């Protein structure tokens, strides 16, 4: 029996790139906390680099550059080409909202790290906590989508989730 197809407007290459950038950001972001040394993650063969704060910090920037480029590209294409046929579901909009806030709080942190720019400690702390919380929330949304077989897309086809033979954006 042929199962129904789920159509999304994103190629597999772009979908994989999105997942890769988010994964890179999640790992390097988490490792900004001093966990790798305390919990001996650095002792695991091949993971010693996770204990290098400078390396993970730079990789976090690199991941952000990649995600921002992809976000600009997909947003443009969605607005100009896809928005009618591929409307976002409520969950899709929630994800967009989280991503927007993540980008905003991340951008504030990047600005704060520039020379000669100072923010007072309390807003800095709140931005840090918000960035961390939003990243956690994005993970929860992705987990929830998988658990409840929900979709980021409003189209009927997209709501019928099938085995991940073709990788969707997720």
């Amino acid at each position, binding site marked *: 029996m042929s199962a129904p197809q789920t*159509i999304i407007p994103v190629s597999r290459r772009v979908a994989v790139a999105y997942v890769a950038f988010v994964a890179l950001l999640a790992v390097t972001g988490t490792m900004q906390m001093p966990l790798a040394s*305390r919990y001996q993650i650095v002792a695991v063969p091949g993971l010693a680099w996770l204990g290098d704060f*400078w390396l993970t910090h730079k990789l976090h920037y690199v991941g952000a550059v990649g995600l*921002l480029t992809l976000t600009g590209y997909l947003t443009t294409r969605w607005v100009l080409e896809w928005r009618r046929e591929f409307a976002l579901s409520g969950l899709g909009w929630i994800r967009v909202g989280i991503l927007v806030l993540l980008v905003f709080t991340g951008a504030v942190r990047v600005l704060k790290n520039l020379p*000669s720019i100072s923010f007072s400690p309390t807003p800095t702390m709140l931005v840090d906590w918000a960035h961390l919380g939003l990243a956690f929330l994005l993970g929860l949304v992705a987990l929830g989508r998988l658990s409840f077989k929900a979709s980021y897309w409003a189209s009927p086809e997209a709501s019928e989730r099938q085995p991940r033979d073709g990788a969707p954006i997720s």
Partner: protein
Amino acid sequence: MSHDPSSKVDISRRNFLSSLGAVGLGLLLPGAANAAKGRPDEELVSLHDLSKCVGCGACVEACRTANAHKFPEPVKPFPAMYPASVKVEDWSGKRQVTDRLTPYNWLYIQTARGQYQGQRFEVHIPRRCLHCQNPPCANLCPWGAAAREDNGIVRIDDKICLGGAKCKTVCPWEIPMRQTGVGLYLKLLPKYAGNGVMFKCDRCADRVAAGKVPACIEGCPYGVQEFGPRSEMVAKAHALARNSGGFIYGETENGGTNSLYVSPVPFSTLDAAATTGAGKPHLSPVRDMMADEDKLAYAALFAPVAGIVAGALRLGSRLSGGPKNPTDVAPPRAGNGGEDLANGFGNGLAEGPDAAKKNGRDKEGGR
């Protein structure tokens, strides 16, 4: 360690980045960025004329007295920490230590003895946090506990610091010192996260806020230090170095610090002669630790623009009948089935048992 001839270029780059940041944040967080409206006051710099320092320790005593109310009073016994390899750092029983930096001693006198140009020298160097202009401790603290203030002071908030010691790891001089058994971590997950609070010189932030000078400056009987706006202190440091044939440390180290040292002996010689190590910072040259991040900030700034341009060019290419994907053979027809939709957009991805064969999996645009 002396004047960097490239500083002019660097300042231009920094000013540009600052302007971008100021505009961006002015839109996002009004009032949060002092640079948004132009900094009315310069950062404050302490200038040390090491030729005047006799190593009497009066500054150390003044610092300890003025900041005694900020020193940690740990709760004992310390909570057990997991894993067991996590070490307690307890200086509460060694408060009298003054020959290195500790949570109870934020300033100490480092002494270097040796020979320079055939003459014996003994140089005493008051050592504490240098208060970097772009401090890694504040930039990389994941918890927002460390921050640089408008006046150039870099502070660690002992109310929210968890004592992870990342600030010490990323500090080029490993200045902050940890005391276990104090701080916020005790109220969160003391067994699994945090290990106390990091302490270092806050350059007497409370005194400076009240219009006074740091206690170490006031307590020095020999006038080793001067305190004032950065441009003025940098000019004085250069004049002093020029007139005495001396050397400057701190002006360009780590991209610039708000502590300047002028010595009659090269700092490389002092560094080789002085005792350095845990709690005893070096005097070596330090590159700008945040330089790579500054460059990546440019990339992050232009990344969304590049993405938007790429998306628009992709559409333009399709509309102008330029190079098409193999799948770009039919316009999208609503309700005509998923496959047609995917083909019509030239980039759709069909999911499902048969879809993988129909889509080129590794190509933007389908097959």
